[in-house]
């Protein structure tokens, strides 16, 4: 059965196309599981990107700290989170960057859903 090209507004679907496109960027991010690799990236970002053969689009996105551009370049958010950690960004920071709002406003939007619903059987 053919893949559907269904679009979900505002929602990147990490499929085979993205996985192919993003392989080098995601491989670099996966390497950040090791502290020595994080240190090597911090010490010389360009050389580290060379080592993983990032595309020009990926390099520029990383240089500019542009999360949306990293995702456009095939980055998967679970792997990008490891790069975000090096940059001192958490998932609320990432959310604010991608939605063009402040971190405070992003958190406030989450809190606007605030609820606690609990049930315990007798």
């Amino acid at each position: 059965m053919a893949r559907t090209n269904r679009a979900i507004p505002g929602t990147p679907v990490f499929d085979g196309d993205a996985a192919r496109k993003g392989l080098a960027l995601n491989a670099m991010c996966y390497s950040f599981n090791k502290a020595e690799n994080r240190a090597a990236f911090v010490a010389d970002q360009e050389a580290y990107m060379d080592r993983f053969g990032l595309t020009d689009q990926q390099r520029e996105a990383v240089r500019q700290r542009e999360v949306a551009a990293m995702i456009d370049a095939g980055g998967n958010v679970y792997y990008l989170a490891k790069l975000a950690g090096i940059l001192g960004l958490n998932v609320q920071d990432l959310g604010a960057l991608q939605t063009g709002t402040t971190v405070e406003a992003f958190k406030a939007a989450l809190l606007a859903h605030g609820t606690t619903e609990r049930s315990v059987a007798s």
Partner: protein
Amino acid sequence: MSEIVGGIFTSHVPGIGTAIAKGLQADPYWKPFFDGFLPVHEFLRRENPDVAVVFYNDHGLNFFLDKMPTFAIGAAGEYRHEDEGWGIGGFKPFVGHPALSWHIIEHVVGDEFDPVTCQSMLVDHGVCVPFELCWPNTDAWPVKLVPICLNTVQHPLPSPKRCLEFGRSVGHALESWPGDEKIIVLGTGGLSHQLDGERAGFINPSYDRFCLRNIVPDPEALTAHDTLDIVELAGSQGVEILNWLAARGALTGSPRELAHNYHVPISNTAAATLLVENRARADA
């Protein structure tokens, strides 16, 4: 004979692990979530299970996109957590149950599922955070672990129907295990959340309530949506509900909800905890 005593379903947000490490359980932000585990702790004290079979997804610790299994079953004698890249750590090692793992593998392959089998496997926060929630303040985990990893990361993902059927096959394997262990099933991740894209921060309480209402009495209701429907309804990472669906499938007796807690937000996530008891079916 072995007994599947129940199921515990919970979110596995990494920040929960950080909150535990910092002792923030009573902090006003965290308390409504952690309090949802009081019935779970009582249940676990009462049932005292020996083994946990955990359905979860890896977030780039053990599996990279070079080799991405749809279903992977751990068959190791021990499992460890390692650095995931952003400082979460300090989780205790796990003792495996390779004989039970291979029994499950034999059974599900007999049922025409085709899992990857892993005699070496790191487990990430998708396993570790739920363990910390279920068994806090222990020097060593009181249960052995069988980790079962589903691909909820790289599309195409397994369909909800397939996940439920896979879980049922695992449940039948557990029922036919000749050991006398008491087994608890865990399903981790979710509920609605989205980390990426312009819709980052998306939360959908109406879909979450639909899942919480139906997953125990009528799990097929969740299979009416395909994986992309779920991405739309639950957010791109909310699709981790597939782990819950597989875990629900493994409760092959007559399950009944004992407690649930739904709390929004924890980090970017609509967090939920669901406790289910499972009793053997009555046969004539």
